[in-house]
Structure formats: structure tokens, C-alpha cells
């Protein structure tokens, strides 16, 4: 028997690697994967014999276990590797770490790294050597987190139907948010209108030029956005972003109190949002700082999709692994 031809690796590094049709395929398949999740025997043979390494340089119990469960339910062998401190040039280089793992013959590396672009670099190094190993970006620094954006879209669509024509407000620490950057791309593909709300110090650099080029709206006034005083009117979806603890001492805003009053989804704002947008929903990628960016009432409200997001995470990641790994022939239209 001759050795199989090495397959051209497919990666999911950025939502930009997908087109609208591919996003749709992933979301459609995720619906069926969620059905597997409801079965008594949660196991399908789709990725039997495939090996998926979860290479996490940055701790994230939620994302790592979600990928691990997704792989296991599809019968892939999933192994977790925790990368050591990567910020020093003294230790093993990122390239060596990635090549060592790929050399074991694994099919995919699901990678979380604290540095923006790390997954892109690893994918390029592996491609240069023709290892055929797929790379899935499970969060790279403050750049992207594509599966989070896909599961956000999935969750919202399950509740609201299509995202086409919907207005989504993304609120909070935008500049440091990989969830924001991935969502911006996927929401555009799915036809949603986006407003980005943040204090000026937490807007990404070059935000005005970026917003103009990509057609989204910027605001520093959450109440005006909730009142529908921006393009798109009252939002259908509020995506609250996590404020990293370490930002609080970084001089980005004076005090947590001032942040909450300006940009938190407080009880009063929840009431205003519910009144203005009765069908409206609230998302948060977690983990939440209750009382800072989101009040407990809002996190637990009927309109909150926070737990649905976690549950959808496994199904969406199963779908992603299926589309990346099941075939050696790419995806059909």
C-alpha cells in the first residue's frame, strides 16, 4: 500500500479565512452537532483516528475544555499540552515547539497564545515544511478568536433567526479584545450592522479610519446607543466584552466605578434595553466580571445568552473540526 499523499493543510486562523458560504456551512452543521450533544451516547465516529493537540500557552479552561470535548465526541484523540512561558528568547522558540508537535504526525493543533499573530506564524512555519497539520486559532493575543465569533453568531441566530439586517452593539474593552476583532468580520459576512461602544482609551488605534473603511459606527455613549440614536437604531444584540483586571491599573479609565457608570450593563440600562428592544439579547464571552461590565441581573436575565454561548461552543467547535479535518478534499459549496 502506498503512503497517502500529504494533504494541503487547511487552517482557521482568522474569520477572514472563511467566506459567507463557509460560515453558513459551519453554522448549519453546528445545528446538527448540537443534536449529538443532546444524545445519551455522545459519540460519533467522524474523526476516528485523527489526533488533535490543544496547545495552550495561555490558560483558558473554558475554551480548552470546549475544544477537547468537541474532539472527543467526534472520536478524535485529543491531547492537551500547556506551553511554557513564551515571552523569553531564552527558552525554546515558538517555531521549535510547533515543529516538535507537528513532527509527531498530528492532524491539527488548536492553539491559544498570548501574542497576536502566533497562530499565523505557526501555520506558516508548518506549511513551509509541508507537515499537513491544520492550525486552529483558539485566541491569539489581542487579535482574533474565530471560533468564539462563530459560536456567538450561532447562539444569536438560534434565538433571533438570521443576523441579516440586525444591529449589534459591541461594548467595552474593544482595543484588547480578540472577540471583537473576529466578531466584526463574521457579523459583516452575516449581514449585521455593528456599533462599537467604548471609552476613548479603550478604542483600538486607528479606529476612525478602520470604522470608515469597514462600515461600522463608533460611539462613546452607551445610553445614546441603547436609545437607538445611532445608525441601525436600537440594537438587537448587546455584546458585552470582558474588562481585563490588569487594565484597571493601566490608566485606561479612572476607576471601576466610573467605568461601570459609563459603560456597564447596569440594572437601569438592562431595563432601558428590554423596553426598547423586547426581543433583544445579551452576550458575553466570559468569564464575566459581575458588577463591573455587566450587572448580575443582566447576566442572569431571560435575554442573556451567556450559558447558550457556552453550550454552543462545543457544537460549533465540532463543526469547525469536521470541516477542517474530515476531508482531504476541502469543502463543497
Amino acid at each position, binding site marked *: 500500500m502506498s503512503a497517502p499523499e500529504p494533504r494541503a493543510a487547511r487552517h482557521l486562523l482568522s474569520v477572514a479565512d472563511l467566506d459567507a458560504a463557509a460560515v453558513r*456551512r459551519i453554522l*448549519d452543521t453546528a445545528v446538527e452537532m448540537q443534536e449529538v450533544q443532546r444524545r445519551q451516547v455522545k459519540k*460519533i465516529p467522524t474523526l476516528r483516528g485523527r489526533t488533535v493537540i490543544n496547545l495552550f500557552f495561555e490558560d483558558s479552561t473554558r475554551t480548552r475544555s470546549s475544544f477537547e470535548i468537541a474532539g472527543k465526541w467526534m472520536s478524535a484523540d485529543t491531547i492537551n499540552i500547556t506551553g511554557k512561558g513564551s515571552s523569553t528568547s531564552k527558552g525554546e522558540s515558538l517555531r521549535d515547539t510547533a515543529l516538535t508537535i507537528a513532527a509527531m504526525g498530528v492532524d491539527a493543533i488548536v492553539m491559544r497564545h498570548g501574542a497576536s499573530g502566533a497562530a499565523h506564524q505557526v501555520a506558516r512555519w508548518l506549511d513551509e515544511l509541508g507537515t499537513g497539520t491544520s492550525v486552529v486559532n483558539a485566541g491569539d493575543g489581542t487579535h482574533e478568536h474565530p471560533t468564539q465569533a462563530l459560536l456567538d453568531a450561532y447562539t444569536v441566530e438560534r434565538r433571533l433567526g438570521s443576523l441579516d439586517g440586525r444591529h449589534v452593539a459591541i461594548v467595552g474593552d474593544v482595543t484588547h479584545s480578540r472577540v471583537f476583532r473576529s466578531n466584526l468580520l463574521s457579523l459583516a459576512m452575516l449581514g449585521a450592522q455593528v456599533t462599537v461602544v467604548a471609552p476613548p482609551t479603550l478604542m483600538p488605534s486607528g479606529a476612525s479610519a478602520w470604522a470608515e473603511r469597514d462600515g461600522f459606527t463608533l460611539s462613546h455613549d452607551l445610553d445614546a446607543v441603547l436609545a437607538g440614536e445611532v445608525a441601525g437604531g436600537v440594537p438587537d444584540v448587546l455584546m458585552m466584552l470582558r474588562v481585563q483586571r490588569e487594565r484597571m491599573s493601566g490608566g485606561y479609565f479612572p476607576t471601576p466605578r466610573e467605568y461601570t457608570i459609563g459603560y456597564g450593563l447596569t440594572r437601569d440600562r438592562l431595563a432601558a434595553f428590554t423596553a426598547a428592544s423586547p426581543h433583544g439579547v445579551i452576550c458575553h464571552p466570559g468569564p464575566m466580571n459581575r458588577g463591573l461590565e455587566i450587572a448580575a441581573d443582566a447576566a442572569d436575565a431571560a435575554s442573556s445568552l451567556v450559558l447558550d454561548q457556552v453550550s454552543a461552543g462545543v457544537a460549533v467547535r465540532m463543526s469547525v473540526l469536521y470541516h477542517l479535518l474530515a476531508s482531504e*478534499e*476541502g*469543502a463543497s459549496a
Partner: protein
Amino acid sequence: MADMPRPDSTIDAREVLSESDIARALKRIAHEVLEQSRGADDLVILGIPTRGVELARRLAALITEIEGREVLAGSLDVTMYRDDLRAQPTRAAQETQIPGGGVDGLVVVLVDDVLYSGRTVRAALDALADYGRPRAVRLAVLVDRGHRELPIRADHVGKNLPTSHSERVSVRLRGYDDEADSVTISGGAR
């Protein structure tokens, strides 16, 4: 040397089953199923996407009409169970919908449009096992074109259609294809 089959070409397509042929075949199969199962008790009809689902729906309606009691139809997607995933482009998974929520102790009739290598049916049996333990599983197909690669045979066949590998059998169903029901055959060595 044989011509290559021309996919989607209708120029040389010839119809082997007409709309009325298909209706008659399904009616016959409905009677056969009832005969073999000794009635409609504990019967569930599951179509394999995509066209098997429409056939299952029709079959269940026919049986319901004959027996005067409702027999339920559903769908069973086999995408994730296929043994040729590596060689095919991935497709979005299709819906699986098991009426009543389970298959334990029931007689399941799997319905597909064309029986060929038998690999789809093998995948369907694996998929079905993950939903429970039916009392019996039967297989109904509209067309059996031969060339089995696995020890699988159909219990109910609309039409046996000897074909060559290079021929292409296409099934069109009203309600799914926006066309009149038909089975045509095209391509092949000439």
C-alpha cells in the same frame, strides 16, 4: 474507449421510471412493509437525506392512508458516519429528526432513493445504533442499481435497474426538486 460520463447532461438521459411508475412502486412498497411488519404498530419510517426524506414522508403517508392510523416519518443523517469522508469534500450535516425521540423496540424502515455500493446504508446502521436499539431494521429503496461493495440488500425495491459503473442515475422528486417525479439514467459506455 468509453466516453466519460457527462454529469448533469440530460441530452442522452432516458427515463426509466415515470411519475406514475414511482407512485405505483411506493404504493406496492407500502403494502409490502405492512405485510412484513404485520401492521403499522411500532413502525417508524426514516429517510436518509436528501431525497430519502421525501420518499419516507410519502411512504408514511401511504401507510397511514392504508391503515387509517398515523405512521410517523423522520430523517436520519449519515454524514458524520460515512467511511469516505476523507475522499469527499465536506458538506454541511443534514437534519436528523427521530419522531417520538427514540427507536428502542421499534421497527425502523430506512428509506433511500438509490441503493448502490451499500456504504450509505452501512453508515445509516451505525448512526441508528447511536439512537437506540430497534426491534428490527428494514431497508426500502426506490432504485437498486447493483454494484454492492458490502453484504447489504434491500427488503423493498421499487425497481431493480442493472447499470454500469459509468452510468449515472438521477432521481427527481416533486417537492424537493421543483420538477415532476422521475428516475433517469444517463452516460455510460456507447
